[in-house]
């Protein structure tokens, strides 16, 4: 997966630079402030960051700003990598309860594993623009449902607001319907993987009609799972209970999958086993209610206890905060700090950790030379609920902090100046 993503990213960038905005040669410099690089240079004060052609050209205290560069004065600001959401619906839904702005659900179609969200992405999305102004700069966006345990492939996106938002193919996404008996669920999952393996090894015979004809998935859906069984595409599986988490650990062992577990509300109960199996998890730190029988042991301290056990994890809220309020990743990271996680680790959990988990840390997750320039400047602690962004840079572009929502706000803040519709 790493290689295929790399190729796609390179291709995407070549395409972007051949066709994209012209002012590319211009250098953007961020001067001063405290830079949390999330890289080898650690925390730098009064540093300079140079950005050129959408990438970080230099970071350090001894960097010289070239003549003609556009300079952002960051004195007194906190500079961090743009935040990442690891399980979003961004670009796939403008308004949840509308029929014509939702592109994430493959239910009642022939597509399950072969569903791929890349074709339905909306670039000029008001949801993306609003999340960007809050400091979110890139994400995994993914399918929500299909008529199988496999929902299809997600995408890595950058919150550019333009045609260059698609960065590369994301993970395969799988989940068990709420009502699915767990025995049926795991048998289905294993049987499909067995069948895909068999199908992959005997494809020509099967195509000639010489194999069994009763596969659970159609051949085109099995084709989409071949990279998964070969460990070349990551599989994100949503599971919560300690027993399901143990089954997932066994699944990885038995099939050699590159597995990521999502939600993982009871992960703290099997933290050592997850660490030993080197399975990363994506968690939502606000989960502390026994919403269902698989979540009885939900606790605010999940993140802190996973960290203590050495499990690699990312923080990524779900529900409302998977799309319109996806920017709440920092609030949720702060919540984890309030319940025992270190501040540093919480910041990592929404920047470099998810980039590593999804194998895109060559491009995202830290402020280091050569990485895509996704950077946010904050007026205070970026995990604090009272802090706000002052600049957000995506793919090297310093975006104005404007969205449809700020325009609405401004229109009604100034009602006494003009009738509302003339702003």
């Amino acid at each position, binding site marked *: 997966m790493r290689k295929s993503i790399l190729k796609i990213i390179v291709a995407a960038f070549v395409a972007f630079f051949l066709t994209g905005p012209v002012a590319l040669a211009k250098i953007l410099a961020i001067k001063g402030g405290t830079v949390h690089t999330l890289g080898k240079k650690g925390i730098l004060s009064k540093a300079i960051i140079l950005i050129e052609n959408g990438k970080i050209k230099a970071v350090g205290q001894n960097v010289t700003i070239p003549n003609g560069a556009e300079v952002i004065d960051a004195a007194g600001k906190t500079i961090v990598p743009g935040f990442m959401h690891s399980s979003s619906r961004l670009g796939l839904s*403008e308004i949840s*309860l509308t029929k014509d702005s939702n592109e994430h659900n493959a239910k009642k179609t022939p597509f399950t594993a072969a569903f791929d969200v890349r074709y339905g992405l909306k670039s000029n999305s008001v949801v993306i623009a609003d999340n960007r102004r809050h400091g979110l700069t890139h994400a995994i966006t993914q399918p929500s449902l299909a008529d199988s345990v496999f929902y299809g492939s997600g995408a890595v996106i950058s919150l550019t607001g333009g045609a260059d938002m698609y960065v590369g193919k994301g993970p395969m996404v799988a989940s068990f319907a709420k009502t699915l008996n767990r025995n049926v669920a795991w048998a289905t999952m294993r049987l499909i993987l067995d069948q895909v393996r068999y199908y992959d090894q005997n494809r020509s015979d099967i195509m000639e009609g010489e194999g069994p004809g009763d596969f659970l998935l159609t051949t085109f859906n099995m084709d989409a799972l071949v990279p998964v069984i070969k460990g070349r595409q990551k599989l994100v599986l949503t599971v919560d209970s300690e027993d399901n988490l143990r089954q997932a650990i066994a699944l990885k062992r038995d099939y050699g999958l590159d597995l990521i577990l999502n939600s993982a509300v009871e992960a703290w109960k099997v933290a050592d086993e997850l660490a030993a199996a080197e399975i990363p998890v994506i968690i939502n730190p606000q989960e*502390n209610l*026994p919403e269902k029988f698989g979540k009885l042991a939900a606790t605010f301290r999940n993140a802190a206890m996973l960290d203590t056990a050495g499990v690699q994890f990312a923080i990524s809220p779900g529900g409302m905060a998977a799309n319109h309020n996806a920017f709440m990743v920092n609030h949720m990271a702060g919540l984890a*700090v309030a319940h025992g996680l270190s501040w540093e680790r919480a910041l990592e959990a929404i920047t470099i950790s998810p980039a590593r988990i999804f194998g895109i840390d060559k491009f995202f997750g830290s402020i280091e030379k050569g990485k895509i320039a996704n950077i946010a400047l904050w007026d205070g602690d970026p995990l604090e*609920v009272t802090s*706000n962004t002052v600049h957000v840079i995506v793919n090297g572009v310093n975006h104005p902090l404007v969205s449809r*929502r700020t325009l609405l706000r401004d229109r009604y*803040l100034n009602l006494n100046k003009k009738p509302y519709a003339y702003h």
Partner: protein
Amino acid sequence: MFRIDKAMVVATIFWAAAALITATAIAAEDAPKDRQPFVEINKNPYPSTYEPYPSVTTVINNATVLTGAGEQLEGASVLMENGKIVAVGSELEIPYGTLVIDGTGKWVTPGIIDVHSHLGVYASPHHQSLSDGNEATSPVTADVWAEHSIWPQDPGFSRAIAGGVTTLQILPGSANLIGGRSATVKNVPSRTREGMKFPGAPYGLKMACGENPKRVYGKKGGPSTRMANMAGYRKAWIKARDYKGKWDSYTRKYQAGEDVSAPSQDLELDTLMGVLNGEILIHNHCYRADEMVSMINMAHEFNYKISTFHHAVESYKIADILAKEKVCSAMWSDWWGFKLEAFDGVDENIPMVASAKACAIVHSDDPNGIQRLNQEAAKAWADGRKVGLNFTRGEAFTWLALNPAKALGIADKTGSLEVGKMADVVIWSGDPFSVYSLAEKVFIDGALLYDRADPDTYWQGDFELGQNARGAHQ
């Protein structure tokens, strides 16, 4: 900046006065001896049996105190005795034997009041068996009472107290035009619903605008449009007006000495009549500005009062009108876009409403959000400051306790650290407008019902017993 609402005052004194008025009126008349007995609708058939938990006289010293009435006091003390606030300030006279809590570095506030919760009626775990919040079988179900769905064992209550919530209003859902009565409860462990009910709190009535009734009933006989929503409410109020007329006429005639038969009792119309009589407060789920104004006009048409618009994501568009009409808005800090009528939500809604001197409230409508209402207020507060709406922390805290108390008609009893009020008090580890601060101690009527440092005070409902360690969720 705050209003005293006549309707709510009337509502609060009504309970005490109702029986007395009727009794004296009858006695005074020179009535025929053998006429039918006077029929009176029992307005409180499921009375609160709440009793404050035992408390000791307690003083919290040298803390930063947000009084809830707008001020921030430094190095101040709060003295609680017999379940009441007896003094707030510096250099208090402390009775001998008072339990002293060192508040150095801590912040003290009134208990948070959530005006919009479904705890108990949509309890955890989320199963059909516990899904008791929407009687989505008819668009007008003014006859149902949320308190008859509340499961006191909902594990959500024990989470909410760790977030500093001491009082909450539990509402029916928003499927219906008129969804039924709400109940205001104290957030205490209780075997019974009645044991949680806030003594003397008036009932609320849930109404809903917009998309939800349309969506639920569009293919089940309607309403399927917003205009039919309005027609549905108006038809209900017309019936209620007639019903009230019958009862008023009956009472008048009986008191004049006539031998008259009482009208037959109708549960649905009892509740609507309660609104027209000013005893029951309207809590109206409504997102869009235009619909809120229609609802206000309808309230004028039928001569009742709307306490609060809930969700109210477009209140910022009509904040001046809401201020003039004295209607509160209960809002999220930043939720938006999950449906078209929520598409225009802005992060500054709450401070913009407050800035117009309308009554602003932070609400949750969510079992997770209820645990961090202080943080939601903090986001709204900071977003307001960013655009020049410079409220102090003290002012912003009114969105969490005093304004909700006004919306529920209980501001004379709780909602601020004022002498004589219930000692519903939270000690925070630090500034409550920070994500890192936690509620450390929560007092309800002066009783220490939650102490983060003392596992003996972690409550656990029956459902979780034997499945989880007590307090493991925090």
